């Protein structure tokens, strides 16, 4: 299939045809091998198929139409197409004789099915048919009456196809990509990787029971616990507490992250934009930043009462530094000539800020936000482990102290999944808000 598509793609009339159409064509094509001297068809044979040469050479002879002039001869090589009579209207017989001059391999495409396919996709089909017409006229100097027999699908007016032109929709495109992905070795290697990882886990802990692994929660124990309706250790997909813990953690991260974004982005923008503001504030920022967030834990507990606010404060602090710093770097990375150009055109300072600084810093802001989400989860877990009443970090820590080891792993897996989802979500929003950048990267072929 892959080979057929590749061959078709470099063949004249099929160039620039959508991958979907190519694979459709490939489905009703078949390989055929001819020896030297084989006659592929004679004049007057039934024109049913179109041929594409994969390897070899054929001699194509079109008898002179009036009997007096020389017959038209053409040698066709690999990559050429012949047998186009199959796409002519009302053509009952072959116009030329075709003989292989060496061992030849061809791809035989069912002409009728090809025409049906093109009838179904007039937007592409018409283009291919026009190319056929051009080829026939140009390469064989055939009379225009022959070329005119190639059926065109008028785009409007009487005889136009009623079917609306079909563009690949999101779903079909996704399906196509998924099918391509399934054809590549990637997913299978991926599965192999998971299998190796899970297999090692299973074997070391539960089968071989290696000395150091003896106390570790095993794979089957964890899986059984996770899917059990009546969990031994009290936490599974069926217990409401599980979702409550997730919800509490997500809520804390969300509050802290939003707060950090609302405060950190403007701060970063001003830090990057105004020099004197930066000279006053940045040293302070840089003095506090190297202090690990976790070192704030006791102070946070002292400063804020309860168990909820300190955890949110810690999470906020971590995200805030990441967001602020990245935003500032983003503003600094903007080429200064942009601001100058805007000023030359009479933009006010505020306009420069709004039209140049903010969009220019956007990619960095979103990188910062992604880092910030990751950091937020990191400090949330720490905060919850040290001072929490609920949440996933709390689950992990209490499971440890109460010797409910499988629950530790359930907590870890859940944390990983939730953490991944949130950062994917931030990335999605970023891509949505920076369409121009996504396109730029796509055009750059990256």
């Amino acid at each position: 299939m892959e080979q057929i598509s590749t061959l078709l793609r470099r063949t004249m009339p099929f160039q620039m045809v959508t991958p979907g159409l190519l694979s459709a064509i490939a489905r009703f094509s078949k390989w055929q091998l001819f020896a030297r001297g084989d006659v592929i068809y004679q004049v007057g044979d039934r024109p049913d198929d179109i041929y594409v040469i994969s390897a070899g050479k054929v001699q194509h002879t079109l008898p002179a139409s009036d009997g007096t002039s020389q017959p038209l001869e053409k040698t066709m090589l690999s990559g050429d197409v012949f047998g186009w009579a199959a796409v002519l209207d009302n053509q009952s017989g072959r116009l030329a004789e075709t003989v292989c001059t060496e061992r030849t391999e061809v791809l035989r495409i069912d002409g009728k099915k090809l025409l049906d396919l093109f009838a179904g996709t007039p937007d592409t089909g018409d283009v291919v048919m026009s190319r056929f017409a051009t080829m026939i006229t140009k390469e064989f100097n055939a009379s225009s009456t022959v070329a005119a027999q190639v059926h065109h699908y008028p785009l409007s007016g009487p005889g136009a196809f009623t079917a609306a032109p079909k563009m690949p929709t999101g779903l079909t495109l996704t399906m196509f990509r998924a099918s391509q992905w399934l054809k590549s070795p990637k997913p299978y290697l991926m599965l192999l990787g998971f299998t190796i990882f899970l297999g090692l886990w299973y074997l070391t802990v539960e089968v071989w029971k290696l000395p150091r692994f003896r106390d570790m929660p095993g794979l089957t124990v964890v899986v059984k616990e996770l899917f059990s309706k009546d969990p031994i250790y009290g936490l599974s997909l069926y217990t409401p507490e599980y979702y409550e813990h997730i919800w509490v953690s997500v809520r804390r991260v969300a509050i802290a992250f939003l707060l950090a974004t609302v405060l950190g982005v403007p701060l970063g923008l001003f830090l990057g934009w105004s020099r004197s503001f930066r000279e006053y504030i940045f040293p302070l920022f840089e003095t506090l930043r190297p202090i690990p967030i976790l070192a704030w834990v006791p102070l946070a507990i002292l400063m804020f009462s309860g168990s909820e606010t300190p955890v949110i404060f810690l999470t906020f602090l971590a995200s805030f530094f990441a967001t602020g710093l990245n935003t500032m770097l983003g503003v600094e990375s903007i080429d200064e000539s942009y601001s100058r150009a805007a000023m030359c055109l009479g933009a006010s300072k505020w306009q420069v800020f709004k039209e140049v600084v903010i969009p220019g810093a956007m990619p960095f802001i979103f990188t910062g936000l992604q880092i910030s989400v990751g950091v937020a989860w990191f400090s949330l877990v720490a905060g919850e482990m040290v001072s929490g009443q609920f949440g996933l970090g709390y689950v992990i820590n209490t499971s440890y102290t109460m010797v409910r080891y499988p629950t530790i792993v359930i907590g870890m897996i859940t944390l990983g999944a939730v953490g991944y989802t949130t950062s994917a979500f931030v990335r999605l929003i970023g891509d949505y808000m920076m369409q121009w950048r996504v396109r730029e990267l796509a055009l750059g072929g990256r």
Partner: protein
Amino acid sequence: MTIASRLKKKIPSRAGLRATISLVVFLILWEAGARSKQWLGVSLPWIGMIPAPTAVLRVWAGLLNDRGYWQSWYLSLFRVLAGFIAAMVVGIPLGLLMAVSKNFNSISFPTFEILRPIPPLAWVPVAIIFWPTQELSIAFVTFLGAFFTVVINVVGGARAIDIRYFQSAQAMGSSQWDIFRRIVLPATLPSIVVGSSVGMGITWNVVVAAEMISGGGSQTGGSGGGLGFFIWNSYVGGSYEQIVVGMLSIGIAGYACSELLRSLGGYLTPWLKKR
């Protein structure tokens, strides 16, 4: 050199002046806020709970002669370096292998990506169960903290190399080893440097947390559990000034490590010097 320019050198730059102003203002506000109860009779929310900078300084000065305090420094630094170096030793070759071999990448990367979003601290209990000593379990969690960052950076750096470099090197008859030494290594070095300095920051974060959760737990003495435990112990013991001393100490230690790494990175990648 004229007198004016000499004079100018004596006066600190505007940025330095402003930095000093901002820090001094910050310290004054902090002092005032912390002593609000003493001075105004009303305890301000939040900041009123924090010990004042002058009190912190007094406690700190006393601690400078304390062996336990310096022992905490040493322990934390040792754990950070152990985890960090292990992460570099394992992470760099793994990252390079992932970047070079497509199949290896397909096998290992998804598993890697599934483990990556799990915060290093969530590994703490597992590490404690698995490793025989506390020291090793902390070092393992520290290792995890830096490991993922280093690998991701190395893979990214090696992937970004222009393929034409390889082609031209091969065309000129370079051996595999030469290509590795003269193209792959210099090209990935900047990302290794970046990854390691980010990793270093994470390592300090992790070490503090791990020490708080597990580190000093079994140690009955007031010191000896590293700086993270120093802070936690100060909190439990109610000596709040020491908490701030601990925080500042870790800040200094972390900053010094990053700075050291940065200058080392600058020395290793001289071609990246700013114009």
